[in-house]
């Protein structure tokens, strides 16, 4: 694997205004991520996993420190520039599947491609491929309300990877799923990771996920307390 930095965070501090004061959610965070990595931000509830993920994704901004994602310094970019970076190079998966309920699987997965102004013939190819990856070919015209939680989350995965992003951010992707579905999802994701050059960052405290991760960054009270490569990760 190359050593190109997908994420380079130095001295990150994140504070939220609470009442008249500040609550420090993240402090002294240094984190580097190379292309193709498959890492987990792990820690108890309130340790700052989601906050860190949001800052990496440009959904939130750092209070101090430098955050460089895919070669872009996130604090020096405008909202619109960050939107373009997300649209082209990032994918998101959330705990609740966050599908748009009025659209079919196909249409939900298609949205990022529409935003990237892709032609409809090309879109069709990509969407079909992504939906096949996650094994939902026969559900392609279903709506979220008619599908199980696992199927919804697989749709969300298809949407997150359909434009082959350089970086995929997943916040507790298995929290709402049972064990079987959780393993299924993790298998799909680690298989994708080995097939395409996308880097993956998970935020999780789900034990079931841990075994799949190749690197685990432990957070506690907004600080990184441990950063280790796992010895023998499961794979697809």
């Amino acid at each position: 694997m190359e050593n190109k930095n997908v994420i380079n965070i130095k001295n990150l501090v994140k504070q939220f205004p609470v009442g008249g004061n500040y609550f420090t959610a993240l402090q002294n965070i240094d984190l580097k991520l190379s292309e193709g990595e498959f890492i987990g931000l792990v820690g108890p509830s309130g340790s700052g996993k989601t906050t860190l993920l949001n800052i990496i994704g440009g959904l939130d901004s750092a209070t101090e420190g430098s955050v460089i994602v895919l070669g872009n310094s996130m604090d020096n970019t405008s909202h619109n520039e960050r939107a373009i970076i997300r649209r082209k190079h990032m994918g998101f998966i959330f705990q609740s599947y966050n599908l748009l309920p009025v659209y079919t699987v196909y249409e939900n997965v298609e949205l990022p491609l529409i935003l990237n102004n892709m032609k409809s013939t090309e879109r069709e190819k990509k969407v079909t491929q992504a939906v096949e990856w996650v094994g939902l070919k026969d559900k392609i015209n279903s709506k979220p309300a008619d599908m199980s939680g696992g199927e919804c989350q697989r749709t969300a995965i298809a949407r997150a990877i359909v434009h082959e992003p350089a970086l995929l951010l997943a916040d507790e992707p298995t929290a709402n799923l049972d064990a079987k579905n959780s393993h299924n999802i993790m298998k799909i994701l680690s298989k994708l990771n080995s097939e395409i050059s996308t880097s993956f960052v998970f935020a999780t405290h789900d034990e079931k996920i841990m075994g799949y991760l190749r690197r685990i960054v432990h957070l506690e009270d907004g600080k990184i307390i441990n950063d280790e490569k796992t010895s023998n990760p499961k794979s697809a």
Partner: protein
Amino acid sequence: MIKFLAKGLIRDRSRSLFPLLAIIITVTLVIFGIGFMEGAMNNFLQSTAVISSGHVKVVTKAYEKESNQLPNDLALFETDKIIRTLYNMYPNYFWSPRITFGGLLDVPNKNGETKEQAPVFGIGIDFFSEKSRQVEIWELEKYLISGHLLKNRDDALISSKLAEQLNVNIGSAITLISSTMDNAFTTYNFNVVGIFNLNKGQADRQMILVDISGARQALDMEDAASEIFGYHNSLYYDDEDAVRIRSDFNLTYSDSIAQMLRNEESYNALSYMAGWNKISNAEKRKLPKQRTDALSDNQMYDNIDEWEDLSVEDPAIFTPKMIALRDSSQLASMVDFSNVAMSVMAAIFLVIVMVVLWNMGLMNGLRRYGEFGLRLAIGESKGQVYRSMIIEAVLIGFVGTLLGTLLGVSLTYYVQEFGIDYSEAINQMSSEMVLPNVFYAKVTSELYYIGFIPGVLATVLGTMLAGLAIYKREMSQLFKELEA
């Protein structure tokens, strides 16, 4: 992207159908409500206008001064000519001569001796000419208890109260005892062909209605009339317009003739009146200026109080003068009250529905924070999301308002044409109340646009406010709304 959003809009009923219905319903309500209030107010004025004031009326200056005595010796002459002039000057109005007279009504027995007698208040109305539209505006068919409308010159309709008092029936002969225009004693026989009840309390207690031809015959008033009533063709009393034509008429027509009569030989003035029809409009426009210049050093007729000094010999007192409905003092306050009441009610109404629709816009926006957060995460810019949201609100607001306006105006129009009959409810309330039995609505021009204030403006403003959160909050916050 537009196609994508349109799909969502159509499929998500809570985004399209329900707001649309809410807007249609509110806009319809606003329009019908305002139209109905306008109609009710107008109806109230209209019954006065029909019986006693017209939207405007033309009388001689002297008649106006003494009008409560029904002074037919001060009546208008050459009414056909004046009416022709009026049609020429104000084609938006229709004009009808009226003779109002007092007297005694005598009911003879078989031997021709007085059986019953009572004071009478008579109105001679131009029922027989189409152009006058008097059959239409009096709506007598509705108020006729028995008998039929006037067919011949000497037919008369009598109010049920008076008929009861005098004990007359259909087919009875009644004798009017009154005085002619030249103050000579006169008697005249009418045949009762119908009995009416105007349902306006005591207003018709002593009333008989005859055709103006009969009244002219009875009172020796050939081509004369107490008053010439004018009504806007739409039958809607437009206060501003009535005041405008009253001022215009008095300045350009009445005053200039008065001035001529005073300055020159009266036949000059009369020929001027007669020739008015032959003068082109352009010339008419020029005239007032000259006349007003001439009048500027003689303000006598501008101030009615100075009338006292006027000698009765002054021929100018017989010049026609126009009076608007609002010029009689009680009616002025009623018109003002109704205008103010209308505006206040309309404003309150509008504010209420604006709050409702504003809220709806707001709630619809709030509900979708999760969706917005997601779209932002996928890579739409804040501007794109905000714009799509506003465009959607404008679209829904516009379509809803359009449909609501259509529905509201149709409904108002229906009620304008056919009315809502409240007569049973009113009869139960009180028989003495001076209230119309049928409420009519009125389609006024503002009904066509007023719905857009709540329908589009409020909806869009509410949405805009909700959408501001997209800019104000951190995007990560928007998700929380959905995660929760």
